[in-house]
C-alpha cells in the first residue's frame, strides 16, 4: 500500500485530537489552577481547530498548555499570557473571536441573516394568506 504513510499521517493527526487528555498539572495555589482552567478554555488548538486547548491532545496543544503552566507559575498575568500567544499565532488562537472591527461581520452576520429569514417568512405568510385560503 503505497499511500500508507498518508493514511497513517492523517490518521495519527486525527486520533491525536480525540485521545484522552494527559495528566492535569499541579499548582501550588488554587487560584492559579482556576486561572489555568479558564485560560485553556479560551485558546484554540491550532492543529485541531475546532477544539480548545482544554479539549485537544494534539502535540501543539500540549506545548501550549505546558507554556501556559510555565508562565502562570512564573507569575505572568492572564493578559500577558494571552498577548504571548496572540503575538505568535494571531487572533485566530483565541477561541472566542474578539470583538474588533474586522470580526464584526462574523458576529453580526448570523443575527442579520436570522432577521432577514424571519422577515421573509412573515412577509410571505402575510402576502400569500388569501391565496392559501387559511381557514380559521
Amino acid at each position, binding site marked *: 500500500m503505497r499511500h500508507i*504513510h*498518508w*493514511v*497513517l*499521517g*492523517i*490518521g*495519527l*493527526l486525527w486520533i491525536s485530537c480525540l485521545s484522552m487528555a494527559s495528566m492535569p498539572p499541579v499548582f501550588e495555589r488554587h487560584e492559579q489552577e482556576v486561572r489555568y482552567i479558564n485560560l485553556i478554555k479560551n485558546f484554540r488548538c*491550532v*492543529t485541531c*481547530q475546532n477544539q480548545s486547548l482544554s479539549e485537544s491532545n*494534539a*502535540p*501543539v496543544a*500540549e*506545548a*501550549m498548555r*505546558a*507554556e501556559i503552566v510555565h508562565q502562570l507559575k512564573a507569575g505572568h498575568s492572564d493578559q500577558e499570557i494571552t498577548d504571548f500567544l496572540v*503575538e*505568535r*499565532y*494571531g487572533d*485566530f488562537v483565541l477561541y472566542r473571536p474578539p470583538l474588533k472591527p474586522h470580526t464584526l461581520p462574523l458576529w453580526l452576520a448570523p443575527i442579520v*441573516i436570522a432577521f*432577514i429569514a424571519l422577515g*421573509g417568512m412573515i412577509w410571505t405568510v402575510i*402576502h*400569500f394568506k388569501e*391565496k392559501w385560503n387559511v381557514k380559521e
Partner: protein
Amino acid sequence: MKGHRQFKFSWTVFIVFFGLVSLLWAGLSLDPRLLPSSMISKPFPSFSLPNLNAQTDLVQTNDLKGKVGMVHIWATWCGICLQEHDALMEISKKSSFPMYGILYQDDPRDGRRWLQQNGDPYDLSILDQRGRLGLDLGVYGTPETFVIDAKGIIRYRAVGAMTMRRFEKELLPILTELKAGKR
C-alpha cells in the same frame, strides 16, 4: 399576488439565496491552516537548544545566521514527515542552501534512530523537546519549512509536506533572490 410582482419576488429570493451560497462556498474553500504567518519579516526567535547529535552542545540563534537557508520542523510521530522525507533528501542533495532541522516535541533517541534509518538531510539538527521554539515560531503542526535570510529574519513559511515541486515553485525563487541580495 399579480404575476409581475410574483416574478420580482421569486428573483429576489433567488438572488439572496445564491448570494449566501456563494459567500459560504467561498468560506469553505479557505484553508484555515494557511493563515498568514505572523512571523514573516520578524527575526528568528532567540533560542538555546541542544544539538540533536551532540546534546551537550548548545545551538543558538546566531548559529543560523550568516547564510540564506531553510529550517524544517519535523517529528518521528509525524507520518507526513516520513512521506516527504525522500523529497527532503533530494532537495538537500541538489540545493546549495543549508537545511536545518528542528526535532519538535520528540524523544532525541527516537529522532536520531529515525535519521539513521531514513537518512539525514540536515546540516544541523536542533532538539526542541518541550516545543517552546515551535511555539515561538507559531507552528501549527509538523512538517513546516521556514526560509531565513543571512540576518536570521524569517522570510517565508511553508506548511505541510515539502515536495520537490513545492521547493522549486515556492522556496527556490525566494532563496535565490535573497542570496543575490535582491530582497
